[in-house]
């Protein structure tokens, strides 16, 4: 072993010498001016290189030592007496395993600690929630009337609930509806929406703009009822969807068309309705121009709208027939239901 060590040292020295020669040759290639600097640099690099080599040597030594120890250990199993180096090595090994084991234990302890902390946090949170709830209840009971009347509040309330994944309208029971009557409010609104839609169904074929619906619901509720925003209507209508596909909303130019008949409307129909929204009517060539459809597709959609009673045909228009949607006919919105019409609704 000692022989091996010696040879290693020798080898290393040889390497060092070789390196020196190399750096010197480098130095020689430098210019006259940079010579002093070059030498100083060379010296320092040699020093660092030497230390590097020494390090690697030590490492190699250690590896060799370990390898030898293992050989010896396998031999020493036969012989009872122990080499002091082997003992040292074994001790080291033991310490290492101990260290690794304790690391695992520490990890487990951390975990334990973590759960305890989490529990603490949950307890804290529920405490906070408790106080929040009681404060909210207090606030709610104090300002009940204002809250009930403010449509702004309802919008924000709904948004808040949406972000935490709660649907306050899912049930009539529960804290919110009992405290604030939010649930009841929407149920009531839902009934009023149905009333308005049914009353105007014969006129518009079951399509109504959200604006008109809003206007009529407000009128029906009277002056002293809570204010109702269009957002409230949209939410109430979404609730009505639970009762089947009778009620739906078609987005049209930033607002909605509310559909109260179970007509099957696909994307094509919706797009055509959107196109008709501005003027209240569409024609085949208009559809072809703005949507780049073939004549057949346009005709098909318009025929469907006629068939569902959503559109009326005007064949006296100049040029080509126009398809009018009473739901979008603006003069309609300002008119009330006449007694004759009312008679038709209730046979």
């Amino acid at each position, binding site marked *: 072993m000692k022989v091996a060590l010696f040879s290693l040292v020798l080898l290393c020295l040889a390497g060092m010498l070789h390196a020196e020669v190399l750096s010197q040759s480098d130095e020689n290639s430098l210019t006259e001016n940079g010579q002093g600097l070059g030498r100083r640099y060379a010296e320092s690099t040699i020093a660092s290189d030497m230390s590097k080599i020494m390090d690697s040597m030590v490492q190699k030594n250690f590896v060799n030592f370990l390898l030898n120890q293992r050989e010896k250990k396998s031999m020493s199993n036969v012989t009872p007496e122990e080499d002091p180096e082997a003992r040292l090595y074994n001790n080291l090994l033991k310490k290492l395993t101990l260290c690794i084991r304790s690391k695992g234990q520490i990890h487990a302890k951390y975990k334990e600690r973590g759960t305890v902390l989490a529990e603490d946090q949950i307890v804290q949170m529920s405490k906070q929630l408790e106080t929040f709830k009681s404060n909210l209840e207090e606030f709610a009971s104090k300002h009940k009337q204002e809250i009930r009347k403010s449509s702004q509040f309802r919008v924000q309330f709904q948004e808040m609930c949406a972000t935490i994944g709660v649907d306050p309208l899912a049930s009539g029971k529960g804290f919110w509806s009992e405290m604030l009557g939010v649930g009841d409010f929407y149920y009531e609104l839902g009934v009023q929406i149905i009333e308005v839609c049914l009353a105007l169904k014969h006129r518009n074929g079951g399509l109504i703009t959200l604006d008109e619906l809003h206007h009529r619901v407000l009128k029906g509720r009277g002056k002293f009822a809570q204010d109702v925003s269009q957002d409230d209507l949209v939410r109430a209508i979404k609730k009505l969807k639970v009762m089947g596909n009778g009620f739906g909303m078609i987005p049209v130019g930033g607002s909605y068309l509310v559909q109260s008949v179970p007509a099957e409307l696909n994307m094509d129909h919706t797009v055509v309705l959107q196109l008709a929204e501005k003027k209240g009517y569409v024609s085949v060539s208009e559809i072809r121009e703005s949507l780049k459809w073939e004549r057949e597709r346009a005709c098909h959609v318009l025929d469907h709208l*006629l068939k569902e009673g959503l559109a009326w*045909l005007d064949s*006296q228009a100049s040029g080509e027939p126009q398809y*009018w949607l009473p739901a979008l006919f603006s003069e309609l919105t300002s008119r009330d239901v006449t007694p004759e019409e009312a008679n038709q609704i209730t046979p």
Partner: protein
Amino acid sequence: MSFEWPWQYNFPPFFTLQPNVDTRQKQLAAWCSLALSYCRHHKLYTLDIMEAQESPVFNHKNIDRKLSMEAILIVFEELRKKGNLEWLDKNKTRCLVMWRRPEEWGKLIYQWVSKNGMVNTVFTLYELANGDDTESEEFHGLEDWMLIRSLQALQMDGKAEVISMDDGKGVKFF
């Protein structure tokens, strides 16, 4: 008081007969009520179909739409079915429009009579339709043929009896 047009009157497709059966029914119902209320407002009892075609009811000049002759005939037929119209000739060129049916008129007249305690009194037809007493009543100015029909309707119910008098006809209410 000017006549108040229904919303449909400004709705261009209202003047085109609708292909969809359901929509057409709504349309015809609206046309019937428009035609009757127009006649009532202008106290029209007979209509000539040629004139009707040019009247503002069926010809909306502002939006340049008019109901075709064929469609007008369908509307009139609908009215006839409901008992509000009668043709005066076989060619269907002139008709009587009864924006109140005879029974309804009879009822109105009888109400007025009983309200004024004139049951068991004899009236001449002229008195009823053109007398000073009935000036504020709706049946004031009712045409003779209509008046007689309504009284006959009352007679059927046993509430009146039309009698012939020397200078025309009279009626006695019970």
